[in-house]
């Protein structure tokens, strides 16, 4: 279902601060910390700057992650929508009430994007490297991962995914599309 392409642009969430600080901060260390997480939930506020529109769209809702591969995004405003990623299946309910269920592997654009978020959360560096060129910077409290898609079809759409965070919590995901459109998702973890 082509209309689902790019769904992953919005899929992200915070992993709660379950991990302990490590000696020396690196991408490997961050990933190792991420792997300690069993799951988490968060609120998000997403601002989308779309060139078709005169003003950004503001969406809000909740994100839930359960290790190692379940991710759910429930949008509450402006229109209710649920998107679930479970293993290789992407399913949910659209704003108009339609149910859908597709296999992400048959849509490599979605797959690559979703893996970006999910692999970060799961601390799966190997998978992350398969799909992206990775640039990492910052320190333990303010780090930044820049992901540039490798696959041609994805690269045509998405320029860069930037994940910002501190400790093992993701604070913000910024996606830059090739047509100049941009989305910024600010994430506030629920305190357990």
């Amino acid at each position, binding site marked *: 279902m082509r209309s689902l*392409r*790019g769904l992953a642009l919005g899929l992200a969430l915070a992993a709660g601060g379950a991990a302990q600080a490590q000696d020396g901060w690196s991408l490997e260390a961050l990933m190792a910390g991420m792997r300690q997480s069993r799951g988490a939930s968060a609120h998000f506020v997403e601002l989308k700057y779309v060139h078709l529109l005169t003003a950004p769209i503001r969406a809000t809702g909740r994100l839930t992650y359960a290790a190692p591969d379940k991710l759910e995004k429930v949008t509450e405003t402006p229109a209710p929508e649920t998107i679930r990623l479970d293993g290789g299946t992407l399913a949910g309910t659209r704003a108009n009430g339609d149910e859908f269920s597709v296999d992400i592997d048959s849509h490599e654009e979605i797959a690559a994007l979703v893996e970006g978020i999910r692999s970060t959360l799961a601390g799966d560096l190997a998978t992350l490297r398969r799909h992206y060129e990775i640039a990492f910077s910052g320190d333990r409290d303010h780090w930044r991962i820049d992901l540039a898609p490798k696959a041609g079809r994805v690269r045509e759409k998405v320029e860069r995914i930037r994940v910002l965070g501190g400790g093992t919590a993701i604070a913000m995901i910024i996606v830059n599309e090739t047509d100049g459109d941009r989305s910024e998702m600010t994430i506030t973890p629920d305190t357990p």
Partner: protein
Amino acid sequence: MSRAGRIAILIWLLGLGVAIGVIVRTPFSTDMSAFLPRSPDPAQQVLVEQLRSGVASRLMLVGLEGGSPENRAEVSRSMAAALRKSDDFAAIDNGEGGVGAADQDYIWRNRYLLVTADLSQAGLKRALDEDLALLASGLEPLLKDSIGRDPTGETLRIVRTLSREGDRHIRNGVWVSPDGSHALILAQTRAMGFDIDAQEQALDQIQRAFTASVHESGVRMQVSGPGIFGVKTRAGMKHDVTLYSILAMALIVSLLLFVYRSPRVLLLIMIPVASGALAGLAAVSLWFGFVHGITVGFGVTLIGEAVDYAIYLMTQTSRQSGARETLRRIWPTLRLGVLVSICGFAAMLFSSFTGFVQLGIFTIVGLTVAAMVTRFVLPVLLREDFAGTRDAGSAPALLAIVQRAARLRPALLVLLIVATALIASRRHDLWEDDLASMSPVSAADQRLDRDLRHDMGAPDVRQMIVATAADDETLLRLCERMDEVLQPLVKAGALSGYDSPSRFLPSKAMQEMRKAALPDRAVLERDLDAALAGMPFRREIFVPFLDVVEAARQASPLRRASLDGTALSLKLDSQLLHDMGRSVAIMPLRNVSDPARIGQALAGIESVELLDLKTASDGMLHDYRREALLLALLGSGVIAILLTLYFRSPLISLAVLAPLAFAVVATIAILIAGGGRLSIFNLFGLLLVVAVGSNYCLFFQRGGLAGEQGARTVTSLLLANICTVVGFGVLGLSHIPVLYGIGGTVAIGTALTLVAGAILAPKET
């Protein structure tokens, strides 16, 4: 050699030359549909056409099992890539990609002719609200590209209806069975299903693509489909016909060598058979332009029946009597026998099965020629002092048995009563009306096919709506009217969906209506502006939309040629046919749960019919079987009349027919005794029993069963029958229904005729 003899030889050799000349130019066919009917009913015609060449007949179903899911997906992708490069396939569907690029382009360009778009102010407002909601959602990017051109989302709507992607399971990027255990590929061959050579080539491509893709992944492949069945059937048929013909020939030759102890006599016996077979093949070729493999296979028929003539002549010729004297004596009986056989076989000429018509012509011409060669050529080739067997051997003993056989008449009566009772008790369960039972495809292959089709969902095209009209335009309008009937039924759950040619080629009337309903630019701009009021869209992004709608208002209507180069064009070819000057639409229905309700809804519409392939084909078989029964009765009736006219005595005629009647009843009883049912092939076998067996009865009635002459007659009958039983009996070993159905019946029936004939033979005074 007499002058008449020389002329006979000359004519014979000339005839053989011509026959061989015709045969070497003859194409041989194994199209199994020759044994499907030529039906006058248009709906049935469509059905047969569908079976032969429809889209269903061109599908090859590939299932990949074993190995890991990733292995299967890898093999599927690699095979599909290889097969897409092949010219043998019109379409390869393994779940990758979805609706093809050419199709998307056609839909994209012509969307406002293909569907009725609501471009009113209210409609636009509703669509823009949805677009905005989609931009807010995670599902935004695809629509983002098309919102400016197609804000109401018509393209997506059409693609979704056509691709039905939601119905199937995709794992690791390829189509899999619902339980995930098989990767599935649906290949559509370019060639018709009955073009077995092309199907074989396509199958070969699939196998090569698999071999090149499988590496050491442990993945195994299963392939099924009508074309594959055709290929397998031809191979099986070739194998069986070759094997059993050679086996029968070897057995008959050994038997004849054993009896006559002379290769020369054997050669002479084969002369009428061979001449008859060649003449028969040539006649069929001239009449039809091709000869079916089964017709050739039934050359064995001729060996069984026409060998008899030479056997009668040879065996009944002693050194004292000489061949000419024997001929003078037996010719009237032999001639009558040939005539009777011809009457029996002639019934086949009226069959709806091309294959049986061919068999009828083959046998009639073959028998006539064999009899003529026996009468005019053989005596010339025999030495003056020829004797069939050096001495009568065991013949007197045989004659003694026949002379005492009359004692068994009460037993025969008892058997007849038992057999009749058995048949009567099974009269409601006597006939095999399932087309699958006639199929030469093994039960295991049929099961595999069913499983794969089940996994793949729809394409067994069991239920369909067939609509006919005088021309395409009227037909497409009819299809559009059907939308109004069917869409509510889909909503109500009577079926899950259907295909219609008007989806991608609407009638001109409908296209004009849609064009006329499109607003002109000024109106559209005004309504769009009104709809955009208060929304965050930039107005300028909708300029392409205004342009496209304006262009659509001027567009020339879509024609069939507009689809050239798309996969939809092939789909149209399979759904919009031309038959006998009329246009025919095939609308396959998916997952029908309430056929009665659909039938009811269609009842009021003219020239539209709900067709259930299974019910229809079983019904067709039922019609055929009635036809075969009618033909068999007709043949028997003509034989009875012929005999009565010849003997000028109903009593003698009855005496000739009585053993045949017994044999037919007893054979039926034997065939159904094990719980089996009678097939149409058994019926044709019974017709052959009457045709062949009548010769025995004539000799028993007219042969003068006394003295050495009588002994030789009985020997010749026994020998002739053994040849027939052997010739047909070995066919009974085949697993192909048409071969064992006819072979077994004839072997049993003729043997019973001989025994009954002997028992009922008149006592010599």
